[in-house]
């Protein structure tokens, strides 16, 4: 997908979108957005983000004017029913896909203004990824997989930091193993270590426990939480599992491409009831 550098300010309206003309002024605090100090820079933020797939009659609005901020050192879970736009939001935040309108800021960098090569460079230096299906290179050892991002960038990884990661994740005696010699949980730990290896500004995790049994899932989630609490990392995780979401510092609820609410210090129960509330709204809407 070729992405021409675009400036959201000048992006024209498209029929069927709810996008507005963007301004450079900070957006008003959207209800449900975690409250932040106006002068501090968020790790990642979205301003009036809209994404429309297709055009004309078959246009589907996946994200509808979403504005949100993710603070440094926070573990945020994005939740919502299927089709709520949570994956789309993450793709846009991570610079993997281009927005129809609106802005994504990583720190002070406007991702929507970057070309493919700049985005690629930004991804390998400032963003980490954890995938549902681990996505390790099968012919590389665990260690080689962990150092892959810095190798791609042509830089040498920070050895102390690597040691810290390896010890934190308990991977020391598995470093020379190939992925197929590791269990699912271990593979995902390697993937997390890989995501952390460059000390990115933010890590995006897409259903990181989706392919794991509950024990391994719990283990992986606690590693993610330790990464935030002990190593000071910022993590944004997309999940549909309330138990997983409960490991986060806060949960952002998404429905129909809009932010439907946030839950601070979530527990599985509070997340469940939050989701139930969404469903009730849905049903009411359908019933109405």
């Amino acid at each position: 997908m070729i992405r021409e550098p675009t400036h959201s300010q000048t992006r024209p309206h498209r029929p069927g979108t709810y996008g507005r003309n963007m301004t450079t002024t900070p957006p008003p605090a959207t209800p449900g957005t975690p409250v932040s100090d106006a002068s501090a820079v968020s790790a990642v933020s979205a301003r009036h983000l809209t994404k429309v797939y297709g055009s004309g009659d078959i246009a589907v609005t996946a994200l509808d004017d979403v504005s949100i901020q993710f603070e440094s050192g926070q573990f945020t879970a994005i939740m919502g029913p299927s089709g709520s736009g949570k994956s789309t939001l993450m793709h846009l935040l991570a610079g993997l896909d281009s927005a129809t309108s609106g802005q994504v800021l990583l720190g002070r960098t406007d991702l929507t203004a970057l070309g493919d090569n700049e985005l690629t460079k930004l991804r390998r230096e400032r963003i980490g990824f954890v995938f549902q299906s681990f996505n390790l290179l099968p012919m590389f050892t665990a260690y080689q997989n962990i150092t892959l991002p810095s190798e791609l960038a042509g830089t040498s990884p920070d050895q102390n930091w690597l040691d810290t990661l390896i010890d934190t994740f308990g991977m020391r005696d598995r470093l020379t193993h190939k992925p197929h010699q590791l269990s699912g949980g271990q593979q995902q730990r390697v993937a997390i270590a890989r995501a952390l290896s460059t000390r990115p500004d933010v890590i995006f995790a897409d259903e990181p426990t989706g392919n794991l049994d509950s024990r391994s899932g719990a283990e992986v989630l606690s590693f993610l939480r330790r990464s935030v609490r002990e190593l000071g990392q910022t993590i944004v995780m997309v999940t549909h599992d309330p138990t997983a979401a409960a490991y986060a510092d806060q949960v952002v609820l998404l429905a129909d491409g809009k932010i439907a609410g946030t839950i601070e210090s979530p527990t599985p129960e509070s997340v469940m009831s939050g989701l139930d509330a969404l469903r009730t709204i849905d049903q009411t809407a359908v019933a109405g």
Partner: protein
Amino acid sequence: MLRLTLHQMRASAGRLVAAGIAIMLGTAFVAASLLATATIERTTYNSVSSSYSDADLVVVASGGLTDDELASIAAVEDVDAVHTMALLGAEASGPSRTEYVTLGGAAPDSSLESADLAEGELPTAPGQVALTTAVAERLQVGIGDEISSSVEQWEADPDSPDGGTSQSQTATLTVVGLLNEPDAFLFNRASALIEPDQLSELLALARGGEPAHYELTLALAAGADLEEVRDAVGGLVDPSAHVRTVEEQAKITTAQLTGNDQIMTVLLLGFATVALAVAALVITNTFQVLVAQRTRTLALLRCVGAAKAQVRRSVLLEAAILGTLASIAGIALGSGLVAAGLAVLSTLELDVPIDSGLTLSPAVILAPLITGVLVTTAAALVPARMATRVAPLAALHPMEGRDAPSAGRARAVLSTALLVGGFGLLALAMVVVRSSGSDSEDTILLALGVGLLGGIVSLVGLLVGSVFVVPRLIRLVGRLAGQGVTGKIAIANSVRNPKRTASTASALLIGVALVTMMSTGAMSARETLTNELDSRFPVDLSVATGESLSDVQISAVEGVDGVTESVLLSQRDVDAANEDGTSTWLTVAAVEDGELQNVLRDPAAAQPEPGIVVVPSEMASWQGIEDGDRLSLSGSGPEAGSTEVTVTARVTGLDGMVALLDPATFAEFGEVAPASMLWARLADDANERDAVRSVQSTLTDLSESVEGLQAPEISGAAVERAAYGQVVDTLLAVVVGLLGVSVVIALVGVANTLSLSVIERRRESAMLRALGLTKAQLRGMLALEGVLIAGAGALIGAIAGLLYGWAGSTVMLSSVAEVPLMVPWRDLALVAAVALVAGLLASALPARSAVRTSPVAALGVE
């Protein structure tokens, strides 16, 4: 199942098209070979049968028929006319020019006349002649003009110095008609027609009354019984003679004439086989990957109750359909190429009457079609078996790209045995030829057979063992060259599926090995020939006159571009008495000015010294002189003294009819005449033909502009040498071109394998892109992968080809001379460059689709 197969084919159309191209090229090759042969055959047949015009019967007598026999055949009932096809060479002179023509007789009956009258009429009485327009033009005569023709008659006469006398009979002929050019192809048809009785007279004179009619055509009366006449005529002639219809005769003659073309057909089909074998490798590869890609679908089918046999049939059916379509395309392509070639040929001014229509006989269409379908289906057998092994359970498991299992021990043992055995046989063949030292043809044939077997066995060994060698080679090369993570990933990727990589590389290996073999062989052959030519034609250029060369001529020759060294020789005739009592005369020459060694290609060929006379081998056999003979030379001619010198003859490969003496011995026969011969050497990088031509024209110009100068006789061994080299080069170019087709097919295979890898690794590429791999890096990775695979195939192929080339040239040429083992560096570099560029090109399209994959794909679940 058929509907499902078709549906699957549609889904994998791109992949199948790539594989189909491989088969298409192979069948196009077969079709083109067959078509070309058929066209040659038909052209020959037409040409042969048209020479008999509308004759009813043809009499062919290898012993010849006399005029009397001719008359008796003509007297047979129902025979209307008899026409002799005898030809006779004669000199024809117009007002200012003389030309050699071929005389033939005008047919007594228009149905037997194959000549095509353009103007005037055919000769009907002695003293008349019809000429082809070209001859008439060259002789500058037209209808009504007179020419004189003279026929030479040779009579053996032991008393004459030449061993015979020649007489000529001259006749004056009036031109009565002009003929269109006959088809000069295959037959030296008459360029001048005269009245048949006059021809018979001249024939009797020229042949000394021997039977002169080898071929007759007969015209029969209307309503005559062909068989009856045939028997009657057959009874009149020698039993060895044949009486046939035109159709029978044309078929037989065509078969005789195209015997050599059949060898060509066999060779062409041999190359086509190579191309098809390579195509088969590509097909096997493609289908294996298709099956791997469809594992889930296949498993699902098995889950819902498809039997193994049904799955196998589905794969084979797919191959058969692909083979049919690709073969039809191939036949169309081959026919198109031949048609285009014929169209181009027919626009050229050739003497060959080419029928530009294609002969699409059933064989020409069916043979490539059947071959194509069979090869494709056979190539799919292994993948089909693979498909039946897919367990129904595979449908329930998530599919992850897993490393293919490595090849088994049995394969390793087999390939080692084949390699050792094959190369052992090759070595044996070389040893047999080298040690036997004899040039008996049986030994060479035996060695050739052993060597060929060894070559085939070892090549099979290489193909079987490539799965071990290729990945190791790639890792090794990669370790030496590949730095950085993208390089590491590319190397790891290219050996991820060793079998597929190996068979992809193998396809290229075959072509490269054969090309290298041919160019190594050709280089050895050329080198051997050059050495041989150096001693046979040690002098590049010789300029000689009957009198003496003037300084103007000498400096003119020396001034020609390309002439580097020259030496002047003077000549005289001497009588030579051999020990055994025979005597003869020799033309001897000695250096008058210059260093002989400077102009000689092979100094040993002409090294006169006191007591030695160097005699060229041709001259020696002509004069009955053998190496080591003691000759007493004495001056001949009026001013010769009574000096007599005894020398030993040294017969060398020198060409020409002039013996060489050292200057001192030469001087003993009296005053040394001014130089009448000049030998020159051309620069190694000079164009021999141009140099000789410009010497020729320079000297001709001089003789026309300077009074009293004769145009000297020029003989250029250099031209002959160049011609030999050119033959080798042309053959090589043709062969390499033909083998090139298999290299092209192999490249289709490389592209195919790469694009399949791209599809298989779609998620992996997307993940790498998400982690920060730039598009350029992704492209570079694939290019490196392509180059590694192609490079491995090319490297192994080049080494194998070099060994084959050495073995082959040793076996075939060692009877001619010592064969140097040469490495054709230039050609190897070319092969390497082609392989590398090809690897890059092959990666271009797959890379395009790879970079189109959005990194988002890595996040999704399949």
